[in-house]
């Protein structure tokens, strides 16, 4: 018997079109790749290339026009509790406290209140938000808001964590701090997801964080290159080797 191991995440011939005023627009065309367990992958591409659309399809939040996404061997479905999402603009509910926002996914999963609170508190602590449990989103800075987004995503113990430009709404220093903390969590394997797929428009950010990078073209977007980032961690953005990777990606895009 031949046993073929199915990829953890497989994107197969994915396409996305939409029509507007009788015109047909192709956003994504024939996108295929797979992600293994334990991988941190970044999707980079110019703005408007449909990378967020691609990520939403991977997470099951949008239906593709063609092709399919398989997660753990099964076609992806919306509301899959094994997949969690971190949004660029945090997507917090303003009338809920930090703790209640973090509990949202657990509540949706039908977990008992006591258990919800226990797990939510643990993730509030892990992302450095203890002390802010009873604060409302309006009382928080952007960086703290994104920590809530991260805690909410991690609390459901996802196998796959999808992050859509998670640092781009933050000022550069806050973004730097949060990138670092996400990498610390990832390194220590405290983070529950087996794998991460992150979308970014920043090539430096992708090389700084990812094991592998998929480079997308302008629409109709295709994957124009796949690059394994072999630099040891923690990576030094001022090193020659780092620049070498940056140059390589730029040359692939242009």
């Amino acid at each position, binding site marked *: 018997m031949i046993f073929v191991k199915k990829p953890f995440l497989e994107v197969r011939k994915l396409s996305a079109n939409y029509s507007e005023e009788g015109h047909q627009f192709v956003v994504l065309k024939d996108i295929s790749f797979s992600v293994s367990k334990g991988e941190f992958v970044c999707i980079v591409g110019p703005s408007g290339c449909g990378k967020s659309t691609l990520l939403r399809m991977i997470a099951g939040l949008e239906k593709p026009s063609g092709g399919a996404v398989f997660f753990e061997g099964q076609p992806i479905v919306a509301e899959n509790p094994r997949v969690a999402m971190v949004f660029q603009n945090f997507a917090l509910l303003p009338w809920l406290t930090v703790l209640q926002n973090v509990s949202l996914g657990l509540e949706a999963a039908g977990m008992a209140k006591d258990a919800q609170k226990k797990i939510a508190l643990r993730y509030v*602590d*892990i*992302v*450095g938000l*203890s*002390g*802010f449990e*009873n*604060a*409302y989103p309006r*009382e928080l*800075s952007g*960086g*703290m808001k994104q920590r809530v987004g991260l805690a909410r995503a991690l609390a459901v113990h996802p196998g796959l964590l999808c992050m859509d430009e998670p640092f781009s709404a*933050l*000022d*550069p*220093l*806050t*973004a*730097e*701090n*949060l990138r*670092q*903390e996400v990498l*610390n969590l990832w390194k220590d394997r405290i983070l529950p997801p087996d794998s991460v797929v992150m979308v970014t428009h920043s090539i430096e950010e992708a090389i700084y964080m990812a094991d592998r990078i998929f480079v997308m073209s302008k629409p109709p977007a295709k994957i124009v290159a796949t690059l394994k980032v072999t630099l040891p961690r923690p990576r*030094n*953005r*001022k090193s020659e080797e780092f620049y070498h990777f940056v140059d390589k990606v730029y040359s692939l895009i242009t």
Partner: protein
Amino acid sequence: MERRLPDVGIGRMLGLMEVISSRGGEENTVTLSADLDLQLDELLPVIEGCEMLGFAEVKSGKVVLTKDGKEILDSHIDKRKNRFRQQMLKIQFFQELADFIKSRKSGKVGKRTLNRWLGAQPRAAREKTIQRILDWGRYAELIDYKSDADELRLL
């Protein structure tokens, strides 16, 4: 008397320290401003905050991480918060704030009382400082604030 804190949050201070650390522990202020695309007036409160907490020093135009600054970067979240708390309690501002809250019978203060304690200064400036008290205080788990009841107390 006028009491104030630099208008900067925890994340930005840690971010600046991480950038400096990745450049060998010190960097020119003007280079930081250019590389990070931050105007000097945006960068200065961040430096001021790091200095106040004893995590960095400014020496002839360079921002240099202190031993405490390097240590906090190498620490995990819980230890970071502890270090923050320790450093905050070395600052006169927080010592006086703690004494003030303790001196209240209820052990709590609201924002109005806090405004009076901050002294004569423009309202916008006072509001910023209050925001930072909550920001730093909650992060360091030194202060708890319930916005529904407008109650601030020491932990």
